[in-house]
């Protein structure tokens, strides 16, 4: 056997040993020890290089080449092994850091709008897009504005429809509806056309119970102009109902009576709880009453400063609390002003 053959054989062995021992390496420390043993200055393969001189000149390139290949093979094995080891370490650490994502989150304290405000805003937004702006008037009103100018002189039977809180001052009361605002807005804006909504708190003399409250919000809708027809009145309210209750909601307009509108109507929507089949929310009728409405009565137009021969209009009134109650199946209207945090936090 020549010198060269001997070295080549040795190189083969060095490679085999190195790769074999690598298999036993467990961790980073072991790997570094293996590295210095197999690739360090005194590693067997390195020593081969220093022994190249022992080989005849013409065979040196062959042995040198072979030695380089062995060194490279060991290096490659090292790199691969190192990558594998790092990957395993990363996986280990990720596994170690696993948390129980079902533990409760840390919620920051956060505020909410009162449910009535939320419903009011939906109403505002829908009407705003139809060109209706907000007009506010006061809670404490005169009998004149709350009743008389709305076509309800003293002792008018329709006054029975409202149980009124009177103040100790003669002729001053808590408004029973936002309709007095109709007269105020008309008198302020006449003879301009009008498209407004009148939100506000109203009051009724009633025993407080799960179904009735002494104060409640109302949103009145009023449009006055030259040539506003019943057809437009109907269309506008249907548009509103679709925006408020869903594109496909079925509506119906049913004749009713209010002293300040004529024709008067109630708008019903198909019960969204039972889909019109009849349930205890809609009291078996399949319909939910959502607003009283009608064409503005000529006397009211006149009292507002508009000539009924020239102007027509429509009005509608709805209760945001009632809408909220229906949408969220609230069993007791008293929740609204009781402000129990356990109720408010649900909105």
């Amino acid at each position, binding site marked *: 056997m020549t010198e060269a053959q001997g070295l080549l054989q040795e190189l083969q062995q060095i490679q085999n040993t190195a790769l074999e021992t690598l298999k036993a390496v467990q961790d980073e420390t072991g790997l570094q020890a293996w590295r210095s043993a197999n690739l360090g200055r005194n590693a067997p393969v390195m020593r081969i290089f220093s022994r190249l001189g022992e080989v005849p000149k013409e065979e040196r390139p062959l042995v040198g080449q072979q030695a380089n290949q062995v060194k490279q093979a060991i290096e490659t094995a090292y790199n691969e092994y190192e990558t594998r080891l790092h990957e395993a370490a990363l996986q280990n650490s990720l596994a170690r850091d696993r948390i129980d994502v079902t*533990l*409760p989150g840390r*919620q*920051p*304290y*956060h*505020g909410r*709008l*009162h449910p*009535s*405000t939320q419903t009011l*805003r939906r109403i505002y937004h829908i009407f705003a897009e139809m*060109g209706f*702006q*907000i007009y506010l008037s006061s*809670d*404490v009103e005169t009998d004149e504005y709350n009743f008389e100018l709305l076509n309800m002189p003293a*002792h008018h*039977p329709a006054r029975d429809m409202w149980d009124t*809180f009177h*103040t*100790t*001052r003669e*002729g*001053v009361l808590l408004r029973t509806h936002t309709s007095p605002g109709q007269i105020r807005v008309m008198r302020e804006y006449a003879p*301009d056309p*009008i498209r407004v909504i009148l939100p506000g*708190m109203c*009051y009724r*003399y009633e025993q407080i119970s799960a179904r009735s409250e*002494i*104060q409640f919000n109302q949103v009145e809708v009023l449009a006055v*102009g030259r*040539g*506003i*027809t*019943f*057809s437009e009145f*109907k*269309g506008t309210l*249907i*548009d509103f109902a679709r925006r408020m209750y869903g594109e496909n909601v079925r509506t*119906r*307009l*049913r*004749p009713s*009576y209010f002293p300040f509108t004529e*024709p008067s109507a109630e708008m019903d929507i198909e019960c969204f709880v039972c889909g*019109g*089949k*009849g349930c205890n929310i809609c*009291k*078996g009728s399949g319909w939910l009453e959502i607003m009283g409405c009608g*064409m503005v009565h*000529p*006397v009211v137009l006149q009292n507002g400063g508009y000539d009924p021969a020239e102007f027509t209009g429509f009005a509608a009134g709805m209760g945001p609390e009632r809408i909220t109650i229906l949408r969220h199946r609230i069993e007791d209207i008293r929740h609204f002003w009781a*402000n129990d*945090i*356990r109720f*408010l936090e649900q909105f």
Partner: protein
Amino acid sequence: MKVPLSWLKDYVEIDIPLPQLARILTMAGLEVEEVRLVGLPFPSQEQHEFKFTGISWDPQKIIVARIDEVMPHPNADRLVLCRLNDGAEEIIVLTGAPNLYPYKGQGKLENPLKVAYAREGSQIYDGHQPGQVLTTLKRAKIRGIDSFSMVCSEKELGISDEHEGVIILDDDAPEGMPLVDYMGDAVFEISILPNMIRNACMVGIAREIAALTGKPLRKPKRTIQPVHPSIEGLATIKILDTSLNPRFVVGLARNVSPNPSPYQVQRRLRLAGMRPINSIVDSTNYVMLELGEPLHAFDYDVLVQRAGGKAPTIITRTAHPGEKLTTLDGVERSLDDFTVLVCDTAGALSIAGVMGGLESEVTEKTRNVLLEGASWNFINIRQTVASQRLNSEAAYRFARNIHPNLAKEGVQLGLERMVCWSGGEIAEGLVDAYPQPAFDPVISLSEADVQRHLGIKLTARQVADLLERLEFECRIEEDTVHAKTPPHRTDIGEGMIGQADLIEEISRLYGFDNIPASRLAVELPPQRGNPVQEMEDRLRDILVGLGLQEIITYRLTSPEREARLLALEDVPYIYLQNPISADRNVMRRSLLASMLEVMEQNIRLRERLAMFEIGPVFIPQPDQLLPAEPHHLAIAITGKAHPTSWDRSNSARLDFFDLKGIVEALLETLHIKNVRFQPLAHPYYHPGKCAQVLSGENSLGVIGELHPVIKKRYDLGTSPVIAGEFETGVLRAVMPDRHDTRTVSAFPPVLEDIAVIVDEETPAEKVLASIFSGGGKLLIEAQLFDIYRGEQIGPGKKSMAYSLTYQATDRTLTDKEASQIRERIIRRLEQDLGARIRSQ
């Protein structure tokens, strides 16, 4: 109002299914709230648009039968055995009905009894249980006798609550006929609108159905011929105030005898919600339900007696001072001076249009009846109803304005019914005082009017057709209809009001459903916006973003409730004349007082509460009718400063600076400038932890920690409560419409800290002002990060450490520039406050 279908069918043909009838009535403004079936089959489930309740009678099992003999029960005194023929076979039926006892042991009855018979397996209501509980008839042995079927009471068949005895049908009831075919019914519960009193009767509803379905209306017909002698000279009428009593009509029935009314009359009255009494009283009630005109029956002989044997004079007048009358319900009533009475020469007989008096009432002994039909001023009747707290079927109708025309029709029909069911005869003629004949307006309406209001094109002919269905007399002149109001309605006005009334009738009959929907085509009005609403909604959004819960409280409160916070005496309030309770008798003056009540209720529910409310308070103004209603914003916070969680705890409590921070953030978001917090003494708050919030010289509100004495008046736990109240109008006034932005610099800032030693009393505000005045434009931020007190700096001193940011927008600052700024700041602090700078 309860409307039996069978009764309606006397006046109009009805050939549509019940749900459809309910629907067309509802869609014409006669809202059907419920349909109670009394025998008729339930409609199919698909058409379930209305609430149907009640009971259906199986036509195979529940039938008309004949009792030929009533025999004693061998083993029980309280039971009888009936030999009964149900049209197919003879059966012995056992019953305990007391109204059959009189027939016991008479042998074969000369006049067999017609009854409602339920065969084995029938479903009926249990007569012995309260309410309506369905039961199925099963075979049983009662005291040794087989029982499997039943002679029914009204309760068992769902007609009424009557269970004293079995139903005894009229003699002409055909045995063997399914009972449902003989008298199966449905009662429509219809809510009558205030302007539709004309429809508070069977003929009224039938008229609407006729108009809606195109069938003819068959008005009640009279067939009995009045006889001599005439009523003339037997009664006179004196009306003292014709505006209160426009018409008074009487008629006379002679030789009547009060009997039980025919069964079908009794059944109809019961279904309509009235109790049958006897054939005289029943006839007045029946005609009231039929025509809508309340009638009153006087015992004529009692009146003659009161008149000393002469022909009575009926006088209508208002009550004398101190006058009293005992009404039919047995109550002695003190009358108001406006109450109208029907009297005779001996005194008051009845409260006009409301309730009869006890004395002249018809009794079992009555033989001659003077029947009153009248017309009353509806406003006056309303006042009496309100004042006497007395309502009746008659008052309900008269208070809504019954047409005087019905007075005469009512009396005539009433006499007819009375004589028909009670025997006797009708005296010829009526005494009819009608000093104020009703005016039935004629309204002119053009095609253009209809189009302008409804948006649909109808010809004059079409308009007239619709109105004629409701008995308007129409005359067409080119494109205009002149419509005369029919003499049974009082709801049609004159002129433009009458036009609106007709437009309503046209739209109702044409059908709201048939009027197409369209969008507003008119010009958009001038757009004005609502700055108050917009601003307050912005406040709400900001405060919610800052973690506060919005609340809305009662605007009604009491001085005592608010005194817990306000502790002021003689505060003027808006008082209610009729409060619902003593603790809600005024309009609030403070939002905070109500908010503290809400906090109290919630204090144990959460570790932290933070809430706000925006709304009006009510301040009486001596020189004005109405109060001022300025809008306030109230905020209150208490409890933990940071949420606790399962792995972290933090016990810090909210304090003054938390609320101050919220207010600062709010005002900053609104871009309100020159905000200052100035120490203030205020009765609500801790004297050392209270500040007035100012923008320049404008006071925006007050915040502070609730005074311990006040806090003790509430149940508010251990944490301090920090609160504040602002006037939103002032916030809006100082809020700029627009604001400029600062340039965001692209050059690096220079950061450094500075510690300033000042006297303990020096307010932080002054230190900061001094730093900024020294720092000039290049100092863009100064943040306090520590306050130190201790030996190193000496007693009565504090060291305030700020981190300063210098930055230019056009260049990188040099070290030299930075140290110059620092020098200027230090000089300024030294000069202004005698401050020392702590070496670093």
